[in-house]
């Protein structure tokens, strides 16, 4: 018992080792959760475009998930598969501190107020919230492994787990309050999205589930006959998701009716980005598609040299996509022309993020590359 107590103390101490000296100012320009919005649109508030110049590189010491970074108030938070969150000063590229989690962070953390919610993939307490100013874990939950990024909307946190649960927590106060819980039939790796009324996510059982935000009751489900690992996005009353069978689906958010589908003949591991009428996603064959969001018509394609397994990011008229061929590509959204690319030291298997005139790219060589545009708007 004594040993256990000491162990717990060590965990607690290690989690509270980080302390931020300033309050984080959360505004609309911060990237605080997966997809940069509850709809998972992966569109930046900032408009930047090539050419870029490598400004600094930061060694995070371990690998990264499909979307490891969030940004707020000039601080880049980088989650690693080694169970750490590195806080880095964006202007200097210097480390501010490291938050140690209990296990690998396979999903995107969430920032709210001056707190960070950390989902972990394999530990006792797979969800915990840390007060960045106090440097203290303020709550933790044992809800099973988490690989889907939690969704933050209003004052609620929607968490989907490998144990096939979806839980709605009210996190307005320091103690999370469970509002409802939904159970699917198989593990959930697909990050949920919401329009404020409904919550949609994919599941290993091949279904796209839509549940009511208020009640947690099932509204509809759509069967793709193939596991869904990719995050879901919502835009203009439609749900968008790709499945491992290589089909990309456009569904009606109201009733789950199939609006259109597009067969890529390649596995889809990553999410999509949507801007206005354009939808972008990549496949494991390395092909990158721009579809018309309305009807799934292919507008243009671009081929990377290897697998694309993360979601793209759109800023202004440029879409950014990483590939396992080690490159980050910047492509003109209007015609699919390559505007810029940079070969990093490792595979790029995560979505970049943007803060003001910086774009951050996490690479498998354990480095986060910070590029600065010479042309910011």
């Amino acid at each position, binding site marked *: 018992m004594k040993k256990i107590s000491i162990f717990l103390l060590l965990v607690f101490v290690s989690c509270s080792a980080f302390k931020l000296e300033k309050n984080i100012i959360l505004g609309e320009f911060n990237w605080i959760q997966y997809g940069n919005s509850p709809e998972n649109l992966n569109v930046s508030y900032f408009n930047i475009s090539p050419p870029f110049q490598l400004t600094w590189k930061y060694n995070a*010491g*371990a*690998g*990264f998930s499909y979307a490891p970074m969030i940004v707020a108030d000039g601080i880049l938070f980088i989650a690693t*598969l*080694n*169970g750490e969150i590195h806080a880095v000063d964006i202007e200097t590229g210097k480390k501010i501190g490291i938050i140690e989690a209990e296990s*690998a962070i396979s999903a995107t953390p969430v920032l709210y107020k001056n707190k960070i919610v950390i989902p972990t*993939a*394999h530990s006792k307490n797979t969800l915990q919230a840390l007060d960045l100013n106090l440097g203290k874990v303020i709550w933790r939950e044992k809800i099973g492994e988490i690989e889907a990024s939690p969704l933050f909307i209003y004052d609620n946190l929607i968490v989907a787990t490998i144990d096939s649960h979806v839980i709605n927590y009210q996190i307005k106060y320091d103690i999370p309050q469970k509002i409802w819980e939904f159970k699917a039939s*198989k593990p959930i790796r697909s990050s949920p999205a919401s329009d404020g009324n409904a919550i949609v996510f994919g599941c*290993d059982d091949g279904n796209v589930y839509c549940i009511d935000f208020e009640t947690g009751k099932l509204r509809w489900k759509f069967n793709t006959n193939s*596991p869904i*690992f990719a995050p879901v996005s919502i835009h203009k009353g439609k749900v968008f998701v790709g499945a*491992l069978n290589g089909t990309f689906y456009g569904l009606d958010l109201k009733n789950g009716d199939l609006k259109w589908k597009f067969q890529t003949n*390649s*596995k889809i*591991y990553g999410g999509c980005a949507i801007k206005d009428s354009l939808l972008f996603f990549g496949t*494991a*064959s390395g092909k990158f598609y721009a579809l018309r969001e309305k009807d799934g018509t292919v507008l243009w394609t671009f081929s990377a040299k*290897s*697998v694309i*397994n993360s979601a793209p990011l759109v800023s202004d008229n440029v879409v950014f996509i990483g590939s*396992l*061929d*080690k490159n980050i590509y910047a492509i003109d959204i209007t015609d699919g022309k390559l505007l810029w690319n940079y070969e990093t030291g490792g*595979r790029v298997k995560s979505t970049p993020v943007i803060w003001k005139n910086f774009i951050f790219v996490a690479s*498998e060589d354990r480095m986060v590359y910070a590029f600065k545009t010479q042309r910011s708007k």
Partner: protein
Amino acid sequence: MIKFINLVLCFLFLYSNCLAQWYYFGRNKVQYTEFQWDILKTEHFDIYYHPEMKDIAERGAYFAEEAYAELQEKFNINILNKIPLVFYSSHLYFQQTNTTPGLIPEGVGGFFEFIKGRVVIPFDGSLYQFKHVIKHELIHVFTLHKVQRVLKDRKQPTEKMPPLWFTEGLAEFWSTKWDNQAEMLLRDAVLNGYIVPLSEMDRILGTFLMYKEGQNILEYIAQKYGEEKILLLLENFWKANSFEKVFELTIGKNYKQFDEEWLYHLKKKYYPLLKYNDPPSAVTKPLVVEGFNMKPVFYRNGDKREIYFVGNITGYTNIYKIDLESKTKPKIVIEGERSDKLEAFHLFKTKIDVKNDKLAFITKSGDHDAIHIYDLRSEKITDMFQFNSLVMITSLSFSPDAEKLAITAIDKSGYSDIYIFDLKTKNLKKLTNDFYDDREVAWSPKGDKIAFISDRMNFGIDGKYNIFLYDVNEDKIEYFIYGNFSCSSPSWAPDGRFLAFSSDIDGTQNIWVIDLSQKKFIAELDGTFNLNGYEEVEIKQITNLTTAAFDPTWTDDGRIVCVALENLKFQIRMIENVYEKIEKPNFVQKINYQTIDKNHWDTPKIHGIQKVNVTTYRGKYDLDIAQSQISTDPIFGTVGGAAIALSDLLGNERYYILIYNTAQTKDEILKSFNIAISRVSLSKRTNFAYGIFHLAGRRYDLTDPDLFYYEKAYGGYFALSYPISVFRRVEASIMLNRSDKEILFGVRERKAMLLSNSLSYIFDNSLWSPTGPIDGKRFNITLAYTTDIQFSNVNYYTFIFDYRHYFRLSTRSAYAVRLTLFYNEGKEARRWFMGGSWDLRGYERWSIRGKKLWFVSQELRFPFIDKFDIKFPFGGIFIGSIRGALFFDTGNAWDNKYTETLGSVGFGIRFNIGGVIVLRYDVGKRLENNLSKFQKSFFHQFFFGWDF
């Protein structure tokens, strides 16, 4: 080493140790062929191939790129460096590769080695199989990269790998379909109760059964739990130290729980077979039930009805015969795998034939296969034929007058085609010339047709083989048995009315018969074969076994002898009342010749058309080993050093560099520097090595316990090894060594410029059991002369005679004898030493020393306990088998005057742990006073090491 195997390996695995090269014995990997190498560069591969197989290499390049595209999606990872693929156009060439140090058994279809990331694959005549093996090995490449990446991303050590059942099962699952061989084996395993649960998979580590069970487990998981679980087993690999825990986290069940449902599923699937299908033992008569027996052929030898077959009953493959009526044990006709000419049978592949008192068979003999003709009357091999252009010969069949042989063979380009060889004129005529795989010829009794199997029809692209007829008179090929299924081993009835063959039409191989008296064939003979209604024929299934039957051969009284699998034994069995079975077949399949799709298939190629895409190989050296270490020894103190090994991609040229220092004080640093550089060349048949060395430091002479001295030695050496065959080699070496000795606790000093020469003849055809040889013999005869050419301080000669013979008493027991004489004579001759568990048992290890030594050891080796399985609440210990030995040792060593003969008798047990180490325990009594008196008490010795 990761490898793809076929059925052979499940047997050869038991004897794999016989292939290891041990000590100063060992078999040889002979580089008979001097290969030229070109490199075909594709997007993800550097393909090394010899120019004769350019066409096959270009097809292989396409298969590799196609597999790569699929696998990078399935594994969700790519390979950042180019993958080196080394192709050989035949298995015989592949066996010469230096990319792996060990000898390559028949059953290995390719391998992936970790050090340089090389994938090495032979072509065996079948493009479908080639594609399968390429994909199989690439799955290993992707598995390794995926696992390492998952671990590296989480900063975990990357040494661990998933268990072999998973890696090999996955490589099979994602590279091929569940085929008739897999189905045959699993049915047999389930119905005969030897299916091994996942929780006990270590028991069948590395066997064909493990491969197929692994494949079946993953297929079952994909079907029941979803195929994404396979990838997740790799993605979750970091979550636990044991793979069982990873399995539980991913599937939701531990091994035991999974076993319950998987084994239940198998039983539910296969037990109902017993309602409609028959085990071979229920419906056929046993002729040979032990071992692995293949390719029976019937021969009417005067009054006797005889069956000749290729079999491996004892560990060596031989040709046996049995008399159908007398029920005697199989008699060896040809002893294989012990001599240069009969180096190896291709047990599961090559046909034999008997006609007019002549037995024709195929063995590997040197770099190519050879056809041997054995005269049944004189009981001698009368002829042996080899062809420069033909590397492997895969089947043969006599013409009715036995003056010609139809053969199928693989040439240097890898193509497998049909030939006719005239035994009198020695003329070889090529009948087909394409990339389709032609095999298993059977010449019709009338002499006008040659039946053979081939993948040249449209289903061939999926690995199916149908039966075709070659019209000898009209020189044309006709479709015969056609359909989306595989056929093999065609065999004509003596009167030519029927052709029996095996086919997997119902999912597993059974014996089928076609009657050539059907309307279509009669109409053809009448010249009216184009009439409507005569285009359909029937083939009839005459066995419906739970497992499989194949290799049929007709007797002259309407019976069929075939091979059937039961209880993991390939048995020779007899089917009685064949004509009745043809009248009342299990199933009838119709073939309509009008519906045959005569379009031929082809595969795309990646050409090396641009000069830059194909380059000639020149050795490029990479690091194999680089290790540095500092160690502390109670006698020699602290020793620091490094060892570096470099080799080229094909492993032909190697450099070894050893640097270390044994200095105890600063002053000794320069004095105690040790460096040795060697170059070893394996590219040609004559292997050679040369090098220079400087070795200095304090030494302790084991041959003389009082001698502690400092020695500085430097010089160079050159050594040659010429393998005469896989069993025999001659070795020679010359070394010039300046040796300065200072006795540390005395005043003596000795300087010498030593010139040493040695010449050895080594033979080894021994066959190994898990703890040591059990059959065959091996010996080493060495002559050496060492002289001091400058100071005349040293001058002695050496004679070594070490002979070991193993007389097989039964399948698993043997009488072993060792005769040894070590002799050094002359000035400052070195001493030999013996005593202990490895030689003269009962005496302290290495306590008997002298410049001359003799030793005779006799052992009776036998199985003691077959399985030793202890279960604890927290796990268990499983030891495969414990072997016993009764021994009688005699010998002694002396300098000038022989004193007495020492000896010992006793009993010992040995067991092999993991195939790498044998632990041995001996108990007995010494024989003292010139063997006249037993020791009063018992001695006990526990040590490690293989039997002599």
